[in-house]
């Protein structure tokens, strides 16, 4: 599965994107954030406050309880500040 990171999430993780093999039991966006937070200090820092991190599956906003089955691309980023 392709993961993308933007803004300070990207800076903290230290890379803009990566491909990961997910273990069984990672079913939702929230599960994925919890799993990522255990992958190392940089991930723990990026995902230390998952409540404020936003996510998108295949380029559409999703909530933490959204299932990730069938997703091609999942992105994590801070609240948006465009406009």
């Amino acid at each position, binding site marked *: 599965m392709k993961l*993308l990171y*933007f*803004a*300070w999430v990207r800076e903290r993780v230290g890379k803009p994107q990566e491909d990961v093999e997910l273990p069984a039991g990672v079913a939702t966006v929230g599960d994925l954030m919890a799993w990522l937070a255990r992958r190392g200090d940089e991930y723990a820092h990026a995902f230390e406050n998952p409540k404020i991190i936003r996510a*998108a599956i295949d*380029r*559409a*906003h999703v909530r933490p309880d959204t299932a990730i089955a069938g997703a091609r691309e999942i*992105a994590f*980023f*801070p*609240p*948006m*500040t*465009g*406009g």
Partner: protein
Amino acid sequence: MGATVRLQREPFDAAAETAALTRGRTDIGAVVAFTGICRGAEDGAPIAALTLEHYPGMAEAEIARHVEEAQSRWALLGVTVIHRYGRIAPGEPIVLVLTASSHRHEAFAAAEFLMDFLKTRAPFWKQVEAAGATSWVEAKQSDDSAAERWSGAAARRRRDAAE
């Protein structure tokens, strides 16, 4: 009705975009143009520049979704949204929203709706460059509140008032 949605690094010309939107049209009676501009100071402290990061692909798709929603809510005769990314100096434009309609109410309402959603839903992030350091702009609760007023009863009243 078609719409123009464009992301670009370079500045845009709001007057030229308005002329392009209305050229040859006699059905349009109102065009509202909103231009967001990079301020030279934040909270009283001068800034050197803003750098806008975006999510290519999703940014265009998310803006297009909200343009479609605006078109379903109001009788629009034309929409243009241009959003820049990359480094933007104080005084330069960041975003342009043009909405055209027969009468002004629809155009005003749709432009405000689109800007409220660009602020809170379009995947762009602003980084401030000031005093040799960079920092990410924090999202404002007031922007979320502005977007939320378009859902529910308040939005229906506003929509009815515009009709």
